[in-house]
């Protein structure tokens, strides 16, 4: 049996990796999967880079940022497998929610109505502070996207800071921040403690959107290609199991254990059911398998890159675009899962938000992202001109 060390942070979207180890999917593929819980994304990045971890549950933009030179270490990283779609939400303090209600906020978590309500609130007060988990995270980019599409300038009208997922509820309760965008179950934990209100979800901002990947160094992937293929097959089986509704209670109980999330099982079950707002279940809140949730679409990598360029984290050049795109490896995914039940798209990229009903996902502002026309997309985006002419 080949030992593989895998890092994770205590989050709902670590499910596929955790279940692969717990339920023997890894073992069936002759892999001894050692799970190691980490305390920060910086740790995950550094430990994978230096080889203390072989693979990790990782923020989707993290390998891209590292390859573009935005991280301290210059080790090449790749993402050959996505660990699901969706799973985040935006939560605000009770005081901010009351102010939003007066401006027509909607109880159902509607991204458009609540974005507009927040915009109205901000016209009459000093900037608020919102937290995300990392600069190079889907949270950061989807929060900025939602704000900007609602008329709020994320670089001026709000302060965006960084707080670790498990510390979000406390930061909100203490008044250090006015709201946050974080993965589950940390929104539900804050709501259950009475500290805030979920105003919208990642799935409402961009349906079926990318969130975490299985990240690793290119070197490890090259030197262990057979092991990697087996690992991806184990994760594929685990993803199907996690996505099966009948298994949700078992999954919630597994995640609740002290060595994983160490939280109340009931809160986890509600999160898995997508019952974040008014107890209404939302099937597409978090997707572990359906909608090609594990395929590493290069259009996802390119969308993250477009947002890095939009907010001036990186220059918009064709070299950078190639680096971002190559960080995602659909070729490895296909090679590993050929002959299994996995759907293997023959394209590496798609138009995001383009074809509703065909599992391509959709942005709440109805704008589509064509990965072949990034420059145009970035230059037309809200606040781009104001930011880049200064």
């Amino acid at each position, binding site marked *: 049996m080949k030992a593989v060390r895998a890092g994770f942070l205590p989050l709902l979207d670590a499910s596929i990796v955790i279940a692969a180890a717990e339920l023997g999917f890894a073992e069936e593929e002759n892999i001894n999967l050692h799970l190691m819980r980490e305390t920060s994304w910086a740790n995950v990045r*550094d430990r994978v880079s*230096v080889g*203390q971890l072989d693979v990790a549950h990782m923020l989707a933009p993290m390998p891209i940022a590292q390859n573009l030179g935005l991280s301290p270490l210059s080790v090449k990283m790749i993402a050959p497998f996505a660990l699901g779609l969706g799973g985040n939400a935006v939560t605000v303090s009770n005081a901010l929610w009351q102010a939003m209600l007066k401006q027509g906020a909607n109880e159902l978590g509607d991204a458009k109505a609540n974005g507009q309500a927040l915009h109205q609130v901000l016209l009459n007060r000093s900037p608020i502070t919102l937290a995300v988990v990392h600069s190079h995270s889907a949270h950061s980019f989807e929060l900025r996207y939602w704000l900007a599409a609602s008329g709020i300038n994320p670089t001026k009208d709000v302060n965006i800071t960084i707080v670790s997922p498990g510390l979000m509820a406390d930061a909100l309760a203490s008044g250090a921040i006015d709201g946050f965008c974080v993965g589950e179950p940390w929104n539900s934990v804050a709501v259950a403690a009475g500290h805030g209100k979920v105003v919208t979800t990642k799935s409402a901002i961009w349906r079926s959107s990318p969130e975490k990947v299985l990240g690793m160094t290119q070197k490890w992937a090259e030197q262990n290609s057979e092991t990697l293929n087996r690992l991806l097959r184990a994760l594929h089986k685990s993803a199907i199991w996690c996505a099966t509704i009948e298994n949700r209670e078992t999954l919630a109980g597994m995640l609740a254990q002290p060595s994983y999330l160490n939280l109340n099982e009931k809160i986890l079950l509600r999160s898995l059911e997508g019952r974040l707002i008014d107890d209404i279940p939302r099937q597409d809140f978090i997707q572990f398998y359906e909608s090609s949730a594990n395929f590493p679409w290069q259009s996802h990598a390119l969308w993250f890159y477009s947002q890095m360029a939009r907010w001036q984290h990186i220059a918009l050049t064709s070299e950078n675009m190639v680096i971002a795109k190559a960080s995602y490896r659909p070729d490895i995914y296909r090679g590993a899962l050929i002959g299994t039940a996995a759907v293997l798209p023959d394209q590496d990229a798609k138009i995001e938000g383009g074809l509703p009903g065909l599992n391509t996902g959709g942005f709440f502002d109805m704008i589509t992202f064509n990965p072949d026309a990034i420059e145009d997309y970035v230059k037309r985006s809200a606040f781009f001109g104001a930011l880049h002419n200064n």
Partner: protein
Amino acid sequence: MPVAQLAILVIDESHERATLIERGLRDAGHNQVIIVSQLNGLVSRIEEISPDVIVMDLGNPNRDFLEHMFRISKAIQKPIAMFVDQSSEQSMFDAIEAGVSAYVVDGLKQERVKPILDLAIARFKAFEKIRLERDEAVQALDERKSVDRAKGVLMQAYAISESEAFVMLRKTAMQQGRKVAAIADAVVQSARSKEKGKK
């Protein structure tokens, strides 16, 4: 002319380890060493201290926040990066392996940072060794307690002497290829569940 002293900030929730690092740095002639173990108000403290080198425990859950602050804070005048240049990447690898993360201000020379980093790495390793030994000592004590209890159970159940009870434990352990302590745990557990069953 003496080289200007570097201000070194050690952020560590383990005060014991921070003190160990501080002492080492002072012995090496660094007099401007500041230890911070509380994260409250850390950013304003960093502005105040204006450190040239920041040494931090890799296990600190606020690393993502601190890295972000180093990158964007206008109040922290000089940009802070995780290492000086490509040539220092090996030192950074060694540091991460030892559980240290270090950040240095832009413009600092590798020759000046490396000794500090090496020292921090050595102290982290020394601390880890002490911790391991302590854990082992605690574990050994727990195991001995468990073996004593198991011996008591067996002595009563079979009306045998203490040494006979120990032989019995050891023999079982050898047969099953397990540790004596593991067999002792099992004996104590099963005696307890039998007790519960009676009640």
